[in-house]
């Protein structure tokens, strides 16, 4: 089993392995091999298309947390220039699960904030698997307020399983830190664009997720709790995560249909991790487009619209 591929992608992995093998042979015998490779590549593409055109919610949830999926820092590198990371909440610590700082987008000054996962074990631990602690949210809030002072649009990038369930986090007021961000962001006098780039999990995601435009990458997810968490509470068994993923409607198309997200950013065939560069280009285009849309609206109107949008969330009868 190829670990760079998820279980449902294994048929693709097998084909790709065959192509690699042929290439290896091909280097000393050029006749007809090229043709064969092209044929197999076509087949692999078809296969990928057919598998990816019919993904279940649980499979998309797997893609959203694929170990090779591009993380916030990868996008920073590809999309922004002149990034300066700013650290610390000025009160307790610097939380490496949230990265933030000033940068330029096509020359334009912006504030960017997002959750960051780790690649190797050491970094995963340092980043706490992108599960922020209160000081992370407070750092984010400090940067949001700075953005307001210096008239920088805020771009946030959501990729977290959720806030960290730890003793220290509770002692230092996890709930208050999340709640305060929701309150501050709802009235922040600068445009805010939120993008879910991987996992959007619960209050930990929402704490940097209030704004004027909500974008989501095609194979990202966003919900009130992880499928495993939902399954273990409602089904009393985390093994029902696939059912929970389906029931919660956490995929991009479903959220779009429900009117909860504004736009879906398409991913390259096979997911963002198969072609980070083209993914970053699409994301950048999406961000530029949203920013231009907001540029056309006066700030007080943006704030009114943000408020009415927040008030419009929910379904009920009277």
């Amino acid at each position: 089993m190829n670990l760079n591929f998820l279980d449902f992608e294994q048929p693709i992995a097998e084909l790709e392995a065959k192509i690699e093998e042929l290439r290896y042979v091909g280097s000393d015998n050029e006749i007809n091999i090229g043709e064969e490779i092209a044929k197999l590549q076509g087949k692999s593409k078809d296969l990928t298309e057919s598998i990816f055109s019919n993904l279940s919610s649980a499979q998309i949830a797997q893609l959203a947390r694929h170990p090779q999926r591009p993380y916030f820092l990868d996008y920073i590198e590809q999309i922004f220039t002149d990034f300066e990371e700013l650290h610390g909440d000025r009160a307790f610590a610097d939380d490496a699960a949230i990265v933030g700082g000033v940068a330029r987008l096509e020359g334009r000054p912006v504030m960017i904030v997002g959750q960051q996962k780790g690649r190797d074990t050491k970094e995963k631990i340092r980043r706490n698997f992108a599960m922020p602690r209160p000081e992370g949210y407070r750092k984010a809030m400090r940067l949001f307020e700075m953005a307001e002072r210096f008239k920088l649009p805020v771009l946030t990038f959501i990729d977290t399983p959720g806030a960290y369930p730890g003793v220290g986090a509770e002692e230092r007021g996890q709930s208050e830190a999340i709640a305060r961000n929701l309150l501050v962001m709802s009235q922040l006098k600068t445009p805010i664009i939120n993008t879910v780039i991987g996992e959007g999990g619960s209050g930990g995601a929402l704490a940097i997720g209030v704004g004027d435009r909500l974008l989501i990458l095609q194979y990202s997810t966003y919900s009130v709790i992880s499928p495993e968490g939902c399954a273990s509470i409602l089904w009393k068994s985390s093994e029902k995560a696939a059912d929970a993923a389906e029931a919660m409607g956490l995929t991009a198309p479903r959220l779009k249909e429900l009117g909860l997200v504004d736009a879906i950013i398409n991913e390259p065939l096979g997911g963002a991790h198969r072609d980070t560069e083209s993914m970053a280009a699409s994301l950048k285009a999406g961000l530029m487009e949203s920013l231009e849309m907001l540029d056309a609206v006066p700030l007080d109107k943006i704030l009114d619209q943000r408020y009415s949008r927040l008030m419009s969330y929910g379904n009920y009868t009277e």
Partner: protein
Amino acid sequence: MNWFSKLLPSRIRTEGGTKKSVPEGLWAKCNACGAVLYRAEMERNLDVCPKCDHHMRIGARVRLERFLDEDEREEIAANLKPVDALKFKDIKKYKDRITQAQKATGEHDALIAMKGKLKGMPLVATAFEFKFMGGSMGSVVGERFVRAANICLEENIPLVCFSASGGARMQEALFSLMQMAKTSAVLAKMSKRGVPFISVLTDPTMGGVSASLAMLGDLNVAEPNALIGFAGPRVIEQTVRETLPEGFQRSEFLLEHGAIDMIIDRRDLRDKLANVLSILTHKSAA
């Protein structure tokens, strides 16, 4: 049935086995110290155990009726009812869970809002009904809270919220998550306008409710020994793999860590809040 029971004439036989339950309604047992208490006395004592001062959980409606002055009460947005927009089904349908909770509690959803008076001072009070799906916050809870807050904004009167909730309602998925943002946004407006909001945290206040409206009071106060936090203690235990210290996430722990302004005994609540609110709103002492 054993041979002896069979011998007994049917009128002597008792149904339902050996355990005799206390007649419904007359006696209550303190679930902290186990003292058996006369229910009428308990009620006079606002469901606080006279022996050990344990604060029992109480329903939302009872809570508001005891908190507000007896005259001029008016329920807010009473007709809002939940809908199942996602057609959510776990081991049960969400629709059935709603019906069941409505039958069990007599309420449409997990938050009740009332306009009334506290010692003559007009205000709006809201309370979570924990028996309605764990007091979970879905669309109706969010909307009712906002409508209650809007009345406060219009009439420039304080808002008090008694929270008792397990958090966001999972059956409404992202919609319920967004209620956190919605309720926080209306509180931002109140805060900006200087309309007081007092959050009373009661047992238990967790998850998405704790991480939004419940922690955003001008004053956050709690009843004694209430469980208050973001992540549930069991989840934390599984994550950190150690037993949690005694009193973790209890009101006294929050007071010590600076998360709440004070702990108020239920029997003093009306006096204390009336006092604070009269000061915040520049009224003469109640």
